[in-house]
């Protein structure tokens, strides 16, 4: 393999098990000799000059420069003073699309086999607008915002993704029978964009029907595009089909070419620092990142090594059903990669 140009990637290790799985990924990339230079940054929220919460300026500057980021899990407290860290990152970089490919992992058995679908979730508006008011004491109103621009943008991304990744159909998921205007607008935009992509089949399905059919036969779905809340629920549902958040990759695509790939599991504070964590999710997200950057060879090599290790079942972390440490699992993958070269 001819030496490629070193590319910088902003690495955000995160909290809890974040640092250990990040270092596992770095070790594996080193073993694969991937041309990636890591720039580690911390994104704990700080209060800016105007009193608004923001991410530290050095983290922002690094991301703006490198355009690509890899992120570990961040803490999201319930009913705390500052907004969710993940939400803050999304707003800062306008990460409008959350992409989660869910493919059944051979060797990690679940009741569902042959899952191969992608959920594309609008990530900036919808039910997560964060706009809530107490109207009178005991009555709360949460506002779900759907805009034409955001809906069109996510629909365009979904069809582009389908085309670039040889997927055959895109399904818009909605509840336009109940939320006539908001989901109706979303649906209309999807239909308009579908007109420009006649090579891709476009269908529409109610959220409840999708849920119903997904747990009975997930093979009927290909690419799913939807607003924020439905995307949140469905992407986690699909992650559950293939084995949980510990093995599910995720990528966030933003405006201006920025993309942040992340593991979507929690910080697992109970096992942090004990060398028990499973780095698969972060690793597969890093593979997604390599593919996004055009480094398919490295991505395939690392993914094959990872899947082979899991299929072999000899060295597995506790959550995958084994007894090995995180470092042992990482070392096994590194060994396979070196054997491949």
């Amino acid at each position: 393999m001819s030496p490629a140009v070193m590319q910088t990637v902003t690495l955000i290790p995160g909290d809890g098990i974040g640092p250990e799985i990040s270092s596992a990924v770095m070790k594996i990339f080193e073993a694969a000799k991937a041309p990636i230079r890591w720039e580690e940054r911390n994104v704990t929220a700080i209060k800016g000059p105007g009193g608004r919460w923001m991410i530290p300026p050095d983290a922002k500057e690094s991301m703006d420069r490198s355009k690509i980021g890899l992120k570990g899990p961040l803490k999201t407290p319930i009913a705390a003073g500052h907004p969710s860290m993940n939400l803050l990152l999304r707003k800062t970089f306008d990460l409008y699309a959350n992409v989660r490919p869910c493919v059944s992992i051979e060797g990690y058995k679940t009741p569902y086999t042959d899952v191969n679908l992608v959920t594309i979730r609008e990530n900036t508006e919808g039910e997560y607008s964060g706009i809530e008011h107490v109207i009178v004491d005991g009555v709360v109103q949460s506002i779900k915002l759907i805009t034409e621009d955001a809906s069109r943008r996510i629909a365009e991304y979904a069809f582009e993704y389908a085309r670039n990744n040889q997927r055959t159909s895109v399904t818009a998921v909605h509840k336009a029978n109940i939320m006539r205007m908001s989901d109706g607008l979303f649906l209309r935009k999807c239909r308009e964009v579908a007109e420009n992509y006649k090579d891709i089949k476009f269908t529409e399905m109610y959220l409840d029907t999708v849920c119903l059919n997904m747990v009975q036969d997930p093979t009927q779905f290909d690419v799913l595009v939807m607003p924020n809340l439905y995307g949140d629920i469905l992407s986690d549902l699909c992650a559950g089909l293939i084995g949980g958040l510990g093995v599910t990759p995720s990528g966030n695509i933003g405006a201006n070419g920025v993309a942040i790939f992340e593991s979507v599991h929690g910080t697992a504070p109970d096992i942090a620092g004990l060398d028990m964590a499973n780095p698969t999710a972060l690793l597969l997200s890093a593979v997604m990142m390599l593919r996004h950057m055009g480094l398919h060879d490295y991505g395939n090599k690392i993914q094959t090594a990872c899947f082979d290790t899991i299929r072999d079942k000899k060295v597995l972390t506790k959550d995958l059903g084994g007894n090995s440490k995180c470092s042992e699992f990482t070392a096994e993958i590194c060994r396979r990669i070196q054997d491949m070269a």
Partner: protein
Amino acid sequence: MATRGHLGNLFCSSSAWEILNCILFWLHNQTKSPTPPPAKYGGRHTVTLIPGDGIGPELLNHVREVFRFSCVPVDFEVVNVNSALETDDDMNNAITAIRRNGIALKGNIETKHTMAPSVKSRNNLLRTSLDLYANVMHCQSLPGVQTRHKNIDIMIIRENTEGEYSSLEHESVSGVVESLKIITRNNSLRIADYAFKLAREKGRRRVTAVHKANIMKLGDGLFLQCCREVASGYPDITFDSMIVDNTTMQLVSKPHQFDVMVMPNLYGNVVSNVCAGLVGGPGLVPGANYGNAYAVFETATRNTGKSIAGKNIANPTAMLLASCMMLDHLKLYDHATMIRHAVLKTMNETRVSLPSLKGLSPHLPLCHEAHWSLF
């Protein structure tokens, strides 16, 4: 019947008539003598029947047949609702009929979202006008149905009147639409109280509140707080909470951890459909909507099933079990048990092509003669 597994879907590989015949066969086996018992004077109930669209009419016809055969003392007052019309007159008639009779059995009314946004979902209108605040779905694995997970037994209680289904939307600026999700303390307390009362009544051990309070801090935060308040009055029942996305993930991997679940409207929609899928499909699970004064029974997943309507393949199980729930509500327990038993017996049979019933399927009156004469 081709395979057991297929019975779980909304449509089945045998014709619905064949299944109906089996149910009637088992019903007949349960009655001691061929002579129907005399109906009590003044002991008959009147129930509003709303056929709805799609498979609704045919499913409700099956219910009427079974009731007639079992001599259930229920008369149906049929009210048709034309979903193609933009006016609300049909719905007002239906609502008045339900107020009059107190109980209804209904099929799903289609919401054509090609119509103007001012024409709201008729089903939703019915639920809010009659204040049917609790949607109850008992998700149980049924014998004879092939599913990936076995022995599921989850009760889902869903707030039925507010939340995301408030139908309050406006376009404040061109291209920007706002939809309001309303959560109130009163309704949250009410549904939580209903959930805990039902859990205690049925001897259930745990209630889980499903929410997204980490993101919707005020709205779902209020819901969660109300659940906690009510929980403190039921120390014999364990209370915990789970975020909705994690809930769906847990449901598809470890569904047995759930006992009773309570949640706002939209999450209820998602969770009940996931659970219906887990136990075998929309054709199997009955649902009930309860208010303080009225009760309406239907299939749990409220499908119109347009694509399979009129083909004699819609699975009658869900609607029949819903009618049994209705009979329980009317305190006609014996009839309810009898019909339920017949339905479950039919499902559990490996070969339903009994010689006596073969070839008789489309001719139900002949069927009755055959039954009386054979046994």
